[in-house]
């Protein structure tokens, strides 16, 4: 069966002022996502995860260019669409939630205006009907007293409520795909839990596919069916969430999972990953993780590892771990 979203060989580069310096922010990334499922894209700052999200939405800044690959969404190739066609699609069939709700809401317009704007633009809903729908949407994202809130400005709402309003705008036209880029980073723990629960409910109700862009493995563990781990622009490991957490193949994934503190774990020290994430504009040759990898062999320094299968739907890019793990799983 073909997925809702099929991404293959996608590469996005940032080009320096004189066209000399090329930064490979996203490098040969492939994955697919089925309708109604949740994919977590995990990575640190500079790993290219936000650039990947912007590439999927075709919202890249002028300095960036999509160098190769394909993005098929509901069977249509997004990379061959015109800007006008993309504009008709964004906000209607695919929508995005960003980290900072204060930056994505316009401070000069009421909440109702901003929700209604999307409906009026995409579905030519008359003003009165759009406002009525805006009230319903606020109810569906669990905002109390929607009749009052719909007339308020963003600064009158708490951070959690603002992010709910952003969610209401995102689902207003019934999209099939929602991309959430660190949607709960600015929220408190209990508010974060409420928001994640709400997203899960909306997803089930509308059969929405979700992509979570995050640095937080806890969100992946809580929300996702599939995980893709990014390091220095590449997908170093991807697969079903349980397969990845139980049998991480790539040394980076394994270290990342082990490095988070766990409740009830009395160990004195955490497993740390030595060194620093690389500068995306000056990546080490070969596998970009090799300077920090405890299992490095000569080949890692010279040649970038290709993708290999380690288990059903579980693939990684590593010279060492992949064959070893594949053998272990068979044996």
């Amino acid at each position: 069966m073909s997925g809702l979203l099929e991404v293959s060989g996608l590469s996005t580069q940032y080009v320096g002022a004189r066209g000399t310096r090329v930064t490979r922010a996203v490098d040969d990334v492939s994955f697919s996502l089925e309708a109604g499922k949740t994919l977590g894209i995990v990575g640190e700052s500079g790993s290219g995860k936000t650039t990947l999200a912007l590439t999927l939405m075709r919202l890249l800044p002028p300095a960036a260019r999509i160098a190769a690959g394909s993005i098929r969404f509901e069977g249509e190739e997004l990379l061959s669409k015109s800007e006008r066609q993309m504009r008709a699609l964004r906000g209607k069939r695919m929508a995005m939630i960003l980290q900072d709700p204060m930056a994505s809401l316009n401070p000069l317009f009421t909440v109702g205006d901003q929700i209604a704007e999307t409906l009026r633009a995409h579905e030519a809903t008359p003003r009165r009907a759009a406002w009525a729908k805006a009230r319903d949407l606020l109810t569906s994202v669990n905002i109390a007293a929607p009749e009052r809130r719909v007339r308020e400005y963003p600064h009158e709402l708490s951070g959690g409520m603002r992010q709910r309003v952003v969610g209401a705008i995102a689902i207003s036209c019934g999209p099939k795909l929602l991309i959430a880029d660190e949607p709960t980073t600015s929220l408190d723990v209990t508010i974060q839990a409420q928001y994640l629960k709400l997203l899960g409910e909306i997803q089930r109700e509308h059969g929405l596919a979700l992509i979570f862009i995050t640095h937080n493995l806890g969100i992946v563990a809580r929300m996702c069916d599939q995980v893709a781990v990014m390091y220095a622009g590449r997908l170093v490991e991807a697969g079903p969430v349980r397969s990845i957490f139980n049998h991480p193949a790539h040394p980076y994934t394994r270290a990342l999972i082990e490095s988070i503190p766990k409740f009830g774990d009395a160990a004195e020290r955490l497993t740390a990953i030595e060194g620093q994430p690389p500068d995306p504009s000056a990546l080490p040759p070969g596998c970009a993780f090799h300077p920090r990898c405890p299992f490095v062999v000569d080949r890692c320094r010279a040649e970038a590892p290709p993708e290999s299968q380690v288990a059903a739907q579980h693939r990684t890019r590593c010279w060492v771990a992949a064959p070893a793990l594949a053998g272990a799983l068979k044996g």
Partner: protein
Amino acid sequence: MTPLLEARGLTKHFPVGRGLLGRGGGVVRAVDDIAFTIEPGRTLGVVGESGCGKTTTAKLVLRLEKPTAGQILFQDQDVAGLEGEGLHFYRKSVQAVFQDPFASLNPRMRVDAIIAEPLVTHERLDGPAVAARVAKLLDVVGLPARSRELFPHEFSGGQRQRIAIARALAISPRLVVLDEPVSALDVSIRAQILNLLRDLQRELGLSYLFIAHDLAAVAHMSHVIAVMYLGRIVEIGEAAQVAMAPQHPYTQALFAAALPAHPDDRRDDVPLFGEVPSPLNPPAGCRFHPRCPKVMPTCSQEEPKLKVSGVRQVACHLY
């Protein structure tokens, strides 16, 4: 064992919104009558959501704010009354590492000058002695010796936080206030810094006041955890007990809301609704009662006091 630092009835109110005629002003009860102790070589973790008063508590301990009421005793001396030599000693004994190492290091100073500054102000060392101490401190926090000639912008977030830690340690403090020391860092770097802090505590016998919203990190780092809600401590006790078997409904909700470390720990229920009310006008009775899943009639009338319950103290009418 006498505690290194003890807070008694510590209170900080901020007046707000006074109009032209001086009327209509309220007060934010940022910290309201809290008590805790920090033992030598131990870590007190403080958790709670925005507006619970944890950062104000840190500022009070650092004497960056003066308490409205109550006192902080450092080695049995009231910190508020310190001046001259005594204050100098307190400032030297209590240092801080803040959340954002991009904001806490002066971009125009070289690393050696940054680390040497507290040495110059607090200990009148000569040039070679300062240089030797800086070299030792860089080594202690795991930075290469050549870092001393560089500027902060030449370092990553994790390395900058190491510089901030080296500066805090320069004058051999007894207590270090750590206010969200890893939350601005990349995930793969956090474990490095937490390990470094643990190692330094063991080697130097440091005490920490560790403030963070990452509950698992606080549980990992702390010996004692205090849970704050709207300016009050609602539960305080041995870290593993508070984290693994919380008693106050707020603590239970907070730890239940923490993200799982593995997909099989998925908990779907969020027992807590609503948001933290304004500290300007906290609810009567127990401040948590409007959100509490176990609310009883007395909760809205009578404010519960902290009571000993097993190896911890809980402020809840259930116990």
